Structures are given as structure tokens and as C-alpha cells.
């Protein structure tokens, strides 16, 4: 099994000190899986950051817990020694990447595409004037507010 690339990013974003006894966990080194109360929690800052980036809404404690469990599940990969092993990002890595000839074979379906649009103006899709940024943590109603 090879290392999942998600791990290092999450560790860096947390910025929390490593729990004692959890072992030195970096890629390519067999480590210990942290137990129960010692496992690292995802901080509010990271959760807020994720909500901005992916526009997900963790909504309640259960949502956050689900994320924690997912990270914990993925962290199992660190138990494997991956020294000198190239990471695999897809089971397709040995497949041939198919090359298509440069012919025009699609398009011309304006009507069909616009059927999906809630609003349209003369065959253009309509969008708000710019990105509407998610309000800052203090200013929006979210479960995350008021959590540690």
C-alpha cells in the first residue's frame, strides 16, 4: 500500500504539537496509530478554511466527527513502510493515456445546455457579479462558531 497524499497537508495545516507517544509520523516510516484521546483533532481554523475552500458546511458535531474518522481511517496508511517507494496517485497509472484525433465532434447544443440554467440572457448563463465570499467565521451562522 502506498501513502495517501492528503496526510502531509492536513498535518501542516493543523499546526498542533504532536501528541506524546504517538510516534514520529512522516511518510516512509512505519509509525504507531494514535489511540483514542491522544489522536489529533482537526482545529476550528482548518475546518473554517475547508468550509471556505470547498463550500462544504460541517453543520454539526456529527459532520466534524465524520471528518475526524475519515482522517483517522486514512492515517492507517502510515503503518506501512514506504521507504523508496514512489507514491501512486491512481490505479490507472499503467494504463495508456488515450490520444484523440483533433477533429470537431461535439458542441452545437446551446439549447440543451441552457435548459439547465436557472437564469439566462440571450444564450449566456447568468451569474452573480463576482464571487460572493463566505463571511468570516464570526459573522456567519455555523456550527463551528463557539467551538473551541
Amino acid at each position: 500500500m502506498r501513502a495517501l497524499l492528503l496526510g502531509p497537508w492536513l498535518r501542516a495545516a493543523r499546526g498542533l504539537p504532536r501528541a506524546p507517544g504517538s510516534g514520529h509520523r512522516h511518510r516512509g516510516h512505519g509509525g504507531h496509530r494514535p489511540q483514542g484521546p491522544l489522536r489529533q483533532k482537526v482545529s476550528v481554523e482548518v475546518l473554517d478554511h475547508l468550509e471556505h475552500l470547498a463550500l462544504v458546511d460541517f453543520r454539526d458535531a456529527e459532520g466534524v466527527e465524520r471528518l475526524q474518522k475519515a482522517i483517522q481511517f486514512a492515517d492507517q496508511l502510515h503503518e506501512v513502510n514506504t521507504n523508496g517507494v514512489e507514491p501512486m496517485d491512481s490505479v490507472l497509472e499503467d494504463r495508456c493515456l488515450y490520444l484523440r484525433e483533433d477533429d470537431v465532434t461535439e458542441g452545437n447544443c446551446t439549447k440543451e445546455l441552457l435548459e439547465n440554467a436557472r437564469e439566462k440572457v440571450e444564450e449566456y448563463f447568468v451569474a452573480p457579479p463576482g464571487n460572493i465570499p463566505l463571511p468570516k467565521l464570526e459573522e456567519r451562522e455555523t456550527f463551528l462558531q463557539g467551538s473551541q
Partner: protein
Amino acid sequence: SQSSSLCKTTPSTAKSPRKIVFVGLEIHAQISSNSKLFSGSQVQFAAPPNSLVSFFDASLPGTLPVLNRRCVEAAVMTGLALNCSINKKSLFDRKHYFYADLPAGYQITQQRVPIAVNGSLSYSLCIDNKMSQMVTKTVRIKQIQLEQDSGKSLHDDTRSQTLVDLNRAGVGLMEVVMEPDMCCGEEAAAAVRELQLILQTLGSSQAVMAEGQLRVDANVSVHHPGEPYGVRTEVKNINSMRFLAKAIDYEIQRQIEELENGGTILNETRAFDSKLGCTVPMRDKEGQQDYRFMPEPNLPPLILYDAKSLPANMNHQQVINIDWIHERLPDLPSVKRKKLVEQYGILPEHSFTLLNEDGLAEFFESVVKQTQMKPKKVIGWILKDLLSYLKQHSLTVKESPVSSFLLADLLNLLEKKEISSTAAKQVLAELWKGEGKTPLEIVKEQKLELLQDQKELEQICQAVIDGHENEVMAIKAGNPKVLNKLIGLVQKKTQGRSNPVLVKQLLEKKLSG
């Protein structure tokens, strides 16, 4: 030959110490192909909105990217032309951000391992404005990557909405990243111009800035020598070559002034406002972007081959051979210029002007083939007379009312000394009207033939000498410049139909006797 930088450090003044300027560029060139990078919809400028959009381009669920072979070949050609190492294995990634013209919420690009790396581009600058001294510089190419273009947003501020056209979404781009080896707007513009010529010669991109086929973002930073590197700002929204130098120079100046006033430079993205001639912070770009790069799960690695590694059993159509492409690269602009200089004995700066104008080099060569006049003389007519006329009337070489055949015809008359060069210019002025007359017809019409009768010419010269005793005395007293006045008088008498060189000889002969 390379020279150490023209403007690497700004001049030192009493008020402000020298500063070192770094300018890097990220250039997006639209690939010239029939269909898009990952889908079969057409690539075309100015089509009815959302008519060139496939389900994949609109990011409808269940669609998958399929790589266009032509786009890969274009990127390989460009990489080879820019002296890059081509990565035989390159990877695709997703770059995530939200914007209305990016329906998938991510762009497929090559962030980890791009198709080409570590190249270089040589370009030339004139040291002074007169184009008499050129210096060659080099900028390192960090990498070239394949990526998707986004759709277009039209901002309707009155109704507070954005109209989105996805025709451009998914068109193939080559992003060419140039290291911060440049130090001013002029260098950047020259580098981009040379890249543009290379792309057009290769055919990998038509690189027309006005149609958005070539877009340039500049990264600018400034610092004092010996101090740590300055904070970098990114300048976007530069729409033409003219504004490129302006925008960069403005930003350099802004940063210098900001630092001199004790301020700080923010690591931000700024847009160039062409009306005001300045850069302004861009909205929607505040704060650092986190693109959450991840491998594109639907595309395996892109494998390229060369003559050695060519697989035996694979379908031809599925194999891209780097060496095969290399063998078929056309002559790049730098090679073409060298050949022009060597073959025709023209100056290097002439070769630059010839290649700078679409079709001009071919026109020049065509005239040279059809005339006895030496190329070194022909070039003057091409660069001064023809080109300035075209510029005045905003015509391209292809639109020239004077064909290479007509011009060669005219130059032959001049070369055979049937007309003077002044008369030739007159004939050319008439030819511009494009009325279908030949040079010979115009010469006859306007009676511009040179007087061939030497005796008659001698008589006129003598008459002029006889009628201007004072001038003759002045010449004999050692003031040779007065001779020009006599030549002028002969010209007047012959209505411009005398060869000034011959007249001078005749007068000198008569006056020395």
C-alpha cells in the same frame, strides 16, 4: 553576444540608492487546434455564445476528459524550440478555485510534472532608439505546461450580474513560465515578441494578443542590493504588447516609490488599467489562494517516446515521437534572420524588421529574385519606402497595392539608369494608387525618363556654367559645396530628368578644364 544587463539596477540618485528589479512572466498561449484540449468541441474566436460547448466543457456529471493529440504535439514543438528538456512522463493535476466561468470548479493543469522544463529564449533589444546597435539577451524558461482555458465572463454592472460564455472553456493552453531574468518593460516586451514570432513560425499558436490567444501576466519585485529579495506582485489584464512594457514599468516605479516612502509592498495581484495607465489591486483576489492541487484521477500519465524508446507494437496514432517532431521543426526566427544576413548581406537590424512584419521577408526575397539591383540596395526600398507607406495606411504586406513584381520592375528601371532615384520615388507614389499601370507606363506618362542624350546634357551644363559666373568663381576658389547649387539648376532645367551623378561629373570636368 550577450551583454550584462542593460537595466538590471536602476540608476542611483541622491535621493534613492540603486535598486535591483526582477521581472518574470507567465504567458498563456492558446494552442492552434481544431478542437479543445480534452473534448471534441470546436476552437473558434467569435462564435454565438455557448455554441462551441460540449457536455464535458459545461462540466455536466458523467463526462470525462480525453486528451487531444494535436495539443500535445504543439507543446512538444514549443518545448523543443525553446531548448527545453521534454519530460517523457508528465502528469495532469486539478487546480481548484471558484469562478463562474470555471464550471467544474477546477482547472486541469500540470502542476507536479509539466511536459517541458529548463529551456531558454534569446531575444534582442536596441540599445538606442535608432536601431543601430542591438544586444542579445537570454531569459530562462522554467517550464511549459498544458492546461485548460476558462470560459469568458462579461460583467454587466448595471444589472449587477455576469454573463458567462463557455465557448473558450476547455481550449488548450500552453503556459510558458519565464524566470525573473528581465528587469524592465522593454526587455519583457522584446522577449514576448520573440516568443510570439516563434509560436507563429511553429504554428503551435497564432498568438494574436488582440484575440486573447496570447496573454501575459508579469511578476515584479524590487529590492536593494545586498538586502533580501523584495515582495512580488502579479500584474494581470495586460491586453497588448504596447501596454505590456507600460504596465511593467509603472509597477516597477510604483514599488520603488512605495519603498522610498517607507511603505511596504503587498504580495497581491494587480490589474493594469489601460485608461489610467496604472496598476490597481484586483477584487476577488484578496488573500492567498489555496488551490488544493490534486492528481487528476481520470488521466493516466502522459508518456512520450523518442527514436530509442519507440514501442514496437503500438498503434502509430497513439504514439508521439519527440525525435520525429524535432526533425520537422521549421527554421526559427533567429535562424531565418541569420540566413537573411548571410545570403543578402543586409544588416542584422534589417533582418529583425523583415521578420517583424508578417510577409515582409518573403516580399523582399521575391523582389530580389526579380531584379538586378543588389539586395543591399533593395532593402532600403523595402524598409523605407514600402514599409512606411504600409504603416501610414495601416495595411499588411499582403494588402499592399504594389506587388513584388511591380516593385522589382521599377527597381530595374532605376538600376538600368533609365530613371533617376527621385523619379523612381515619384513612380512609386503613383503605383500606390493601385490603378494597374506599370512603372514604364507611368514613366512615359509623366515624362520621367532620364535624358540619354549626353550632348544635350553637356549643353545644358555649359549653359548653367555660363550663366552663373559668381558661383563658378566660388567653386574655383575652393568652395566645392556651391557645386550642388549648379547641379540643382541643371536638374531644374531638365525637369528632374538628369542623372545627378552624371551632371556632377560633367560640371566638374568642365570647371577643371
